[in-house]
C-alpha cells in the first residue's frame, strides 16, 4: 500500500509550522505569521480532501468493504514487551478520513477568520503558533493507529487547549479557566490511562486493528464466559477497562459530570472556542468510542456501550436544560455543544453493528460531521458579534440584524440546522439518531425528542435576542465583520446547507460495509421531530422576537427550578467544595503538616536528643588543666590498684 504514504505530511506540516512560529514568534510581525499559518493549513486542507477523494472513491473500497489501511511511521517507538508497543502509525479508514476533513476544514476557516479577529492583538504570532500546535495534535489524534498513540495526542490537544484558553494570561479568569480545563480533563485522562493499561494487559496489543479484530474479541469474550478474568458487580474487568477509557472521553467531550470545564473554557478567544471547544477536540471522546466500537459492541454483550448511551442521553438533557437560561451567548453555545455531543454519544450507545443495525453509529458520525460545521459557524458568528459589541451578554445586544446582515443570515442558517429543520444539515443527522434511538429504547428516544425541542427553543432565543428583540443604542455603532471573517462565515454556511445531502451511510458504517439509508418523509418520527423543532422555534418567537413579559413570567413560574438551572445546578460549587474543602484542606494540608512536624520532627528529635546528651556530659571538658591532670592521675592510680588487686 503505497497510495497513502504521503499522509504523514498532514500532521507534520502544522508541527513544523508550530516550531517555526514558536521559535520566531517575536521576530515575525503580525500579518506574516498569520499568512504562514494559513498557508500551511491550506496545504493540509488540500491534502485532506485529496485523501478523502482517493479513499472514498478510488482506493478505499475493496470487495464491497472499506479497507483499514495502516501506514507505519516509526515502528516500536517504545517497546513495552514483544507485543505491547507504542508504534507511530497512521490508520486510514472511513472515520479517520472523515475526521481529517472536519478538522482541516474547520481549522482552515478558523485560521482565516482569526486574521481579522486577532487583528492588532499583541500575541498574534503566538496565537497562530498555538493554533498550529493544536491542529497538529488533533490531526495526530484522529490518524493515530495505536491506542497509546491516541493517548499521546490526547494529552497534546489537552495542552494546546490549556494554552489557548489561557491565551490572555494576564486575565486571572482566563488563567483559572485554563487550569480548570486542564486538571478536569487530566483527571479523566487518569482513568483513560488506567483503561489503556487494562485493555493492553488483557487484549495483548495496543494496535486498533488487532484490538478490534474478531480474534481478540472472541478471546476476551471466552475468558469472560469461563470466568478466567476477574469480575466485579457482575461485570468483567475488561468492561470496566472500556468504561475507564470512555471516562477519558467523557472528560474531553464534557459529558456529565466532567463537563464543568467547558463553560469556563469560553474565556479563550472565540475562534478557539469554535475550533477546539465546539468542532474538533470536544468530539474526541465520540471519536474514541467509534474507534473502539467493535470492542464496545461485542465485549460482554455491549455492557460498556449501555453506559455510553446513558451518559450521553443524560448529558444531552442536562445541558439543554441549563442552556435554556444562560445569559452569556458563548455559554449558551457551550452547553449546546455539550448537549449535541451527548446526542452523538447516545447515537453510538444505541447503535447495532451489522449494516442497517449500525444506523446509530453512522448517525453519530454524521452528526459529528454536520455539528462541526454549524457549531463552528455559530461560534464564529458569536465571535463577530462580540467583536462588534464588546460584550458577551445578550442584554447588551439586540437589533443587530440591520447592522450585521451577513452574520445574521449565517447565524439563522446554523440555528435552523441545529434545530433540525430540513433541508439544513442538522436535520438529516439528528433525524437518523432519533430513528436509531426509537428502535433501541423508547425512553432514550423520548429524551432525545425533548432535547430536540429545547435545542430549537434556546437557539432561537439566542438568535432573536441578538439580532432582533429590541433596538439597543450602541456607543460605537456595530459594523459588519471584515472580509476574512465574513468569508469563513459564508463558507461554513454553504457547508451547513450542503453536507446534509451527502448519503453518509455509503461511506461510514460500523462494519465498514456501505449501506443505504433513506429519509422516509411520511414517517411519523420524521414529522414529529420537525414539528417539535417548529414548536421550539415558535415558542422562542413568541417570547423573544419582540420584548415581551413572557420570559419573566415563565421564570417566576418555575421558581426554584429556574435558579437551579441558571446556576448550572451548582456543579461548580460542588466541585469547589470537593477539591478545596476536602482534598486540599482535609488531605493535602494534613499531609504537609505531618511531613513538617511528625516525620521531620522525628529526625529533628534525634538531633535534639543527641545534643541534650552531650550537653549533660560536656562539663568534663572544663578547660582547667589541673582537672585533666587529676583525671589522668586518678585513672593511672585506679588501673594500678586494679592490677595489684587482681594479681
Amino acid at each position, binding site marked *: 500500500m503505497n497510495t497513502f504514504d504521503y499522509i504523514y505530511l498532514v500532521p507534520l506540516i502544522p508541527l513544523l509550522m508550530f516550531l517555526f512560529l514558536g521559535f520566531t514568534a517575536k521576530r515575525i510581525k503580525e500579518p506574516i505569521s498569520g499568512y504562514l499559518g494559513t498557508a500551511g493549513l491550506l496545504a493540509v486542507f488540500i491534502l485532506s480532501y485529496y485523501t478523502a477523494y482517493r479513499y472514498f472513491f478510488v482506493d478505499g473500497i475493496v470487495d464491497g468493504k472499506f479497507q483499514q489501511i495502516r501506514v507505519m511511521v516509526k515502528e516500536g517507538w517504545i517497546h513495552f514487551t514483544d507485543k505491547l508497543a507504542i508504534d507511530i502509525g497512521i490508520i486510514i479508514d472511513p472515520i479517520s478520513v472523515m475526521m481529517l476533513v472536519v478538522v482541516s476544514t474547520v481549522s482552515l476557516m478558523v485560521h482565516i477568520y482569526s486574521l481579522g479577529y486577532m487583528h492588532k492583538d499583541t500575541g498574534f504570532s503566538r496565537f497562530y503558533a498555538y493554533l498550529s500546535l493544536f491542529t497538529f495534535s488533533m490531526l495526530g489524534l484522529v490518524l493515530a493507529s495505536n491506542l497509546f498513540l491516541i493517548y499521546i495526542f490526547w494529552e497534546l490537544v489537552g495542552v494546546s487547549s490549556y494554552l489557548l484558553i489561557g491565551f490572555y494570561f494576564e486575565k486571572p479568569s482566563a488563567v483559572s479557566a485554563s487550569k480548570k480545563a486542564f486538571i478536569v480533563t487530566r483527571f479523566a485522562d487518569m482513568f483513560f490511562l488506567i483503561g489503556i493499561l487494562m485493555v493492553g494487559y488483557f487484549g495483548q496489543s495496543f494496535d486498533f486493528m488487532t484490538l478490534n479484530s474478531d480474534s481478540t474479541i472472541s478471546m476476551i469474550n471466552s475468558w469472560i464466559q469461563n470466568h478466567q478474568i476477574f469480575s466485579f458487580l457482575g461485570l468483567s474487568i475488561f468492561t470496566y477497562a472500556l468504561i475507564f477509557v470512555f471516562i477519558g472521553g467523557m472528560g474531553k467531550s464534557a459529558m456529565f459530570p466532567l463537563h464543568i470545564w467547558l463553560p469556563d473554557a469560553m474565556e479563550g478567544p472565540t475562534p478557539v472556542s469554535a475550533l477546539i471547544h465546539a468542532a474538533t477536540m470536544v468530539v474526541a471522546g465520540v471519536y474514541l468510542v467509534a474507534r473502539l466500537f467493535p470492542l464496545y459492541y461485542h465485549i460482554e454483550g455491549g455492557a460498556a456501550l449501555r453506559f455510553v448511551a446513558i451518559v450521553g442521553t443524560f448529558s444531552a438533557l442536562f445541558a439543554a436544560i441549563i442552556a435554556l437560561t444562560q445569559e452569556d451567548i458563548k455559554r449558551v453555545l457551550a452547553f449546546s455543544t455539550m448537549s449535541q455531543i451527548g446526542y452523538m454519544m447516545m447515537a453510538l450507545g444505541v447503535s447495532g453493528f451489522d449494516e442497517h443495525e449500525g444506523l446509530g453509529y453512522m448517525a453519530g458520525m454524521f452528526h459529528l460531521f454536520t455539528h462541526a460545521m454549524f457549531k463552528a459557524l455559530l461560534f464564529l458568528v458569536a465571535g463577530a458579534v462580540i467583536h462588534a459589541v464588546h460584550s458577551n451578554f445578550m442584554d447588551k445586544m439586540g437589533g443587530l440584524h440591520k447592522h450585521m446582515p451577513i452574520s445574521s443570515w449565517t447565524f439563522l442558517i446554523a440555528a435552523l440546522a441545529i434545530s433540525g429543520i430540513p433541508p439544513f444539515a442538522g436535520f438529516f443527522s439528528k433525524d437518523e439518531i432519533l430513528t436509531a434511538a426509537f428502535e433501541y429504547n423508547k425512553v432514550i428516544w423520548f429524551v432525545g425528542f425533548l432535547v430536540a425541542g429545547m435545542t430549537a427553543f434556546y437557539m432561537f432565543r439566542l438568535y432573536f435576542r441578538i439580532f432582533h428583540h429590541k433596538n439597543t443604542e450602541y456607543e460605537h455603532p456595530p459594523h459588519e465583520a471584515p472580509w476574512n471573517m465574513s468569508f469563513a462565515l459564508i463558507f461554513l454556511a454553504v457547508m451547513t446547507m450542503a453536507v446534509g445531502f451527502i448519503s453518509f451511510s455509503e461511506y461510514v458504517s460500523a462494519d465498514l460495509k456501505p449501506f443505504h439509508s433513506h429519509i422516509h418523509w411520511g414517517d411519523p418520527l420524521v414529522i414529529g421531530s420537525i414539528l417539535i423543532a417548529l414548536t421550539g422555534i415558535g415558542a422562542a418567537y413568541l417570547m423573544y422576537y419582540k420584548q415581551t413579559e413572557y420570559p419573566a413570567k415563565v421564570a417566576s413560574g418555575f421558581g426554584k427550578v429556574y435558579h437551579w438551572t441558571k446556576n448550572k445546578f451548582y456543579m461548580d460549587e460542588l466541585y469547589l467544595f470537593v477539591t478545596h474543602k476536602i482534598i486540599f484542606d482535609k488531605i493535602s494540608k494534613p499531609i504537609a503538616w505531618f511531613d513538617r512536624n511528625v516525620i521531620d520532627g522525628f529526625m529533628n528529635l534525634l538531633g535534639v536528643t543527641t545534643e541534650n546528651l552531650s550537653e549533660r556530659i*560536656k562539663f568534663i*571538658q*572544663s*578547660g*582547667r*588543666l*589541673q582537672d585533666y*591532670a*587529676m583525671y589522668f*592521675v586518678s585513672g593511672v592510680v585506679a588501673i594500678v590498684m586494679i592490677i595489684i588487686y587482681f594479681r
Partner: protein
Amino acid sequence: MIEGVSLFEILSLTTILFFIGVYGFLTRTNLIAMLMSLELMVNAEAVNFVAINKYLSPAILQGQVFSLFIIALAAAETALALAIILHLYRLTENIDVKEVKQLKY
C-alpha cells in the same frame, strides 16, 4: 654503682621526687610552678633510668642513652612551654590556670 647505696634507696628517692612533682602539678595554679613540678617528674624518671640500668644490667647502655634523650626532650619541652606561657600571658595578662579556661567544651 655507689658503694653502700642499694637500688631500693635510689628508687625510694626518685619515687618521692616524682610524687612531689605530681603533688606540685596538681596543686599549684601558677603555670611556672607547674612547669617546675613537671621538671621534677621528668628528672625523677631520668634518674630511674640511669639507676636501673647501672644496677640491673650494667653491660648495656640503653637506659643511660634514654636519660640523655629525656634531658634533651625536657629542654625542648620547657622552651616550648615557656613560649606558650609567655604568649598566654600576653593574651590574658595572667598565668593562673584557674583563671585561664578558654579551651573548654
